[in-house]
């Protein structure tokens, strides 16, 4: 069907400790599109990703992936539907080797044999040197851990990949690498959602830009148009 989007978020609301983290938030991400999300701290960007991942169950509204309703499903079920996630905080299994970290993502997959070779291929894809494969993930550099994170998310070949601040605080060389990887995924037709404060970087990774404030998406459109909008500038000013 042509008219099903990859991700549809409809009027989703969620409240923590009386604060409305998402407020009738609505968003549509088309198949094969790369969408960036910007917005001030606390505007609900990470919460939105967490709702799509199934970590939070929305109080109100619906979330659909490829036309199938998923709000209320546990995170691992959503993950198996082809939704990958790279977290804001670099998150590796510190006492497992780099290769094991990546392979852990494929534990549930039907395919039995090729897990190891596929994990190695993905190390190549994201630019992790193969001689790191037997190092404990806790012992490699922070930027490399981020690459492990991304590699892990890519192992099951997800149709949708959500990246939360993929380049924040990363060493410039590895940052370049990450941007290249994401850009290549975009060109390969994956559906991407990228949250970032780093505007120059995000522009190189997305087709459209959404601006979020106070728990809702205020504007979606061409990146230049969104950045030029006075609404956006005002929100950053704190009016």
């Amino acid at each position, binding site marked *: 069907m042509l008219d099903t989007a990859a991700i549809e978020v409809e009027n989703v609301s969620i409240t923590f400790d009386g604060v409305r983290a998402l407020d009738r938030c609505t968003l549509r991400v088309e198949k094969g599109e790369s969408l960036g999300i910007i917005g001030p701290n606390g505007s609900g960007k990470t919460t939105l990703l967490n709702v799509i*991942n199934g*970590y939070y169950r929305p109080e109100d509204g619906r979330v659909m992936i490829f036309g199938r309703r998923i709000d209320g499903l*546990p*995170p*691992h079920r959503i*993950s*198996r539907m082809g939704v990958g*996630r790279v*977290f804001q905080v670099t*998150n590796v*299994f*510190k*006492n*497992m*080797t780099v*290769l*094991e*970290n990546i*392979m*852990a*993502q*494929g*534990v*549930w*997959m039907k395919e039995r044999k090729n*897990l*190891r070779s596929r994990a190695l291929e993905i190390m190549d894809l994201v630019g992790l040197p193969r001689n790191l*494969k*037997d*190092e*404990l993930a806790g012992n490699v550099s922070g930027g490399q851990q981020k690459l492990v994170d991304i590699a*892990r998310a890519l192992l*099951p070949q997800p149709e949708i990949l959500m990246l939360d601040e993929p380049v924040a605080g990363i060493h410039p060389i590895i940052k370049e690498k990450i941007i290249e990887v994401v850009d290549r995924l975009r060109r390969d037709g994956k559906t991407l959602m990228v949250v970032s404060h780093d505007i120059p970087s995000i522009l190189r990774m997305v087709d459209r830009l959404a601006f979020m404030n106070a728990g809702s998406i205020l504007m979606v459109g061409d990146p230049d148009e969104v950045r030029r909008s006075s609404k956006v500038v005002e929100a950053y000013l704190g009016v």
Partner: protein
Amino acid sequence: MKAGAILAAVAVAILLSIPIIAAGNNFVITLGFIFSVYIILALAWNIVGGYTGMLNLGHAAFFGVGAYTLALSTGAGIHPYIGVMAGGLAAVGLGLLMSPLLRLRGDYFAIGTLSLAEAIKVAVLNIHAYGIRVTSYEGLGRVENYYFVSAVLVAVGATTYLLQRSRLKLALVSIRENEVLANASGINPLKYRVIALLLSGVFTGIAGGIYGYNLLYIPAEHVFSIEWTIIPLFMVLIGGRGTLTGPLIGSFIYLGIYYVLQFTLTEISLLAFGLVVVLIIKFMPQGVIETLFIRTLRIKRVSII
């Protein structure tokens, strides 16, 4: 890998030749039997306590239930070795009963399993205050039991070896390291923890059964004693959790301490265990393997599978 295979073959050969070398020396065979039981328990405890990182303080319950089932089976006229296997099955049943506790956070799981084991012990003591007799079977004696326990030891060793190379290990260790992240990787934590607990239970139950048959009399106080939790925990902790070699090395260190303390009081060995546990946690929280072999001697780590 080659060296490991040779080492394993040598170990199995020694294990199987002990009765022949000892030739009727009951003391040696009994000692070999008991140590094998301890090592089985350590490897079994390690599946839960090491790979999943859930501190099971109720391990003794598996052991006691296995021994008791054996006694009840022989009482009903069942072949003892079938009774031993039934003990393993009963432990699996207990594992299923325990599995809701696996949803708990680590320290609550420790408390829950400790209480469950104590509750079962008290309940059993209430019925059989002095224990229960085992009906012996013609032709199955010390030596046969020794071979039986050796087979179980090889089985649990092989299981750990295969586990080490399996996806199950990846799942268990990733859950231990970061449950939320593992969940996001498509892993259902409860499911894998239950599998680990049942695996751990079945070997411990069988070990309890064969231990009970070897004793021919089962004092409830003894087979449900917390020492069946403490000694395996100690062996695993000292060697290093979540490995195959860790518990094995740990058990040799345990044997050492056992010999040193053999003619002294058991209290002193408890004291020594306690001290070693505390010192290990303070100075080598990763266990001897990680600290000595990998960090100090820089032996290379290899991703298996």
